[in-house]
């Protein structure tokens, strides 16, 4: 949540009414920040704690946590994250009427 507060502070513009396109971009940027935050945690953040993960009693499927995250955990999370991101972005585009006319 502190992330959200920080983002609002960084992007707050006083008394300006934003156009449709600016609002769309604002929301798109917000989604980008959230996506990159999750990405950061699982691609970089947790690997600061390799030794701690190894010693951890959490052992997914019986593998040491450090081993599991490098060979399945993080990878799987990235796959889900991209699809989640794509869905959210489509919703944002729809909301502002920016969906492409021809769809596949």
């Amino acid at each position, binding site marked *: 949540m502190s992330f959200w507060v920080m983002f609002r502070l960084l992007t707050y513009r006083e008394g300006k009414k934003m156009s449709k396109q600016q609002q769309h971009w604002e929301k798109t940027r917000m989604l980008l920040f959230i996506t990159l935050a999750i990405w950061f945690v699982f691609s970089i953040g947790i690997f600061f704690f390799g030794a701690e993960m190894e010693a951890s009693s959490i052992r997914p499927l019986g593998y040491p946590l*450090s081993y599991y995250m490098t060979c399945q955990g993080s990878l799987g999370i990235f796959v889900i*994250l991209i699809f989640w991101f794509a869905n959210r972005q489509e919703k944002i*585009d729809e909301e502002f009427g920016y969906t*492409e006319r021809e769809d596949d």
Partner: protein
Amino acid sequence: MFKGKFIDNLPKIYGTYTGGFIVFIILMAIAEQAGMSAKLIGIFFVSFTVLIYALIGYLSRTMQTDAYYVAGRQVPTVFNGMATAADWMSGASFVAMAGGIYFKGYGYMALLVGWTGGYVLVASLLAPYLRKFGCYTVPDFIGTRYGGNMARLSAVIVLTVASFTYVTAQINATGTIASVALDIPFEIAVYVGLASILMCSMLGGMRAVTWTQVAQYIVLIIAYLLPVFWISNKMGAGVFPHFMLADEVARIAELEAQFGLGEIKNSAADLKQVPKGLSGITKAHAEVNTTPWKFISLAVCMMAGTASLPHVMMRYFTTPSVKAARRSVGWSLFFIFLLYSSAPMLATLSKLSLMDPNLATGIIGKSISEVQAIDWYQNWNQANLMFVSDFNGNGTLELNEFFMGGKAVVLATPEIAGLPYVISGLVAAGGMAAAMSTADGLVLAISNALSHDIYYKMINPKAETAKRLIVARILLVLIGFAGATIAALEIQGILGSVIWAFDFAMSGLFFPLVLGVWWKRANAQGAVAGMLGGLIAGSAYLIAVRSGYPGFWGVTQLTFGIVGSLVSLVLMVVVSLMTKAPDAATQRMVDEVRIPSGKAILGKQH
């Protein structure tokens, strides 16, 4: 015959193709039982699959620019995902990665994280916006967004350096496989590999490469997964290895302790006997064996490199819409995940097959003469990929006395684990598919940039379509030959070159691409400074480290992209701010790129 209807029929066509391939595997298995020689099976597998790709390449021939450059922008999401996965997974992923994990363990698995995590950046920062732009090549985006030939030229330079480094490694890999499977000398095999690559891309450009890559993905994924599942079941390790190998991982740790891994060290004199390029197991299998920074810096370089490599980015130019481009990134990563999550499992199974004295296949603890008499040992020893020596003179093979080449882990494991030879043939075909598909994407990326951005946009803007496409093809052949010539010299191993390519791409292109979409104030001067400065700084650091400079911040020759891209970022921001802001038209263009609907910036034919 490849219009309209073809797209609707894709699932049927590739379904039939997959079925046909499985029938072919079964036929080969029967032939093996009937006494067909291993050599012949290998030759059949490699030549049959390569001929199929060449046929697809021929059927997809085209004389239209948008078909040649972006496959007519009609590749459906899931199929584009498969094509990207094949484009992405190179000889390094298929042949070398499991080997690297086998030898170096956790520290090496940073590559798994890096080569998948990068797709989050591709999906969120770049692919949909570049698709909206409507460009044919990555320099096309840079050139139009920033304006001016200098920006375009700089992008072409970075692209060429990165992709060329990459492609030599891939041609090297096709050469290695062709030389083993077809039993011809490496120097000739390299050109056989090149000929196969050119057959796929020359006549149909991106369209041909797309449809061959889908076919190659199907072959390579079957070839990778089948042995993993088979060995796991044969060993009784688990029906579904990915979820069930925890005991095997623990068992390896137990054996490592028992065999004195890390305690018994080979003397320098002993190691001199070992042929170049082979290594023994010196690192624990699953233990955390590297510092966080080493792991993270390598992962970061691979991720930023992923988001800057033009041959990957241009795959997303081929989707029908922006929305499809975004989803397609997800599918790409899903198809990549299938192979990447299997690589550590293959490394585990391979290692246990060799190490565990309780298994029939285990060789550690057997007598040296017994091991030297094994068929597969003799074959791979002859290929210079395996070596044993009785350093301590006790007559038995110790863990520190067994050496293997990184490539052998994937290529030889089916044989070691006692699978029929048909599986080895299949794996060779899979490795060939992986290396060819990536080489195709890379050669096309380079020649498209040279033909579209240099020849058409800068030298001869009035050139007719036919002339442009002929130039593109001539360049394709020339670049292929140049790549093969350098590959034949074998300067750097497959994996080393691939990692360098990522660092080069990251140094020169990452920030100019990302800021092109996300920072309106970025201008041409800044972009040029960023691209050239980043590339030069990165290369200088690489050369310095190679010639003995200790480096700083723990940045090695595998992670020099960190230095390059930081220099690139700083230069780009500083120079942009010091010079004039982009004009109103450019700013409007960036606004336009940021919404999915509406016309593409560049027209359908440009």
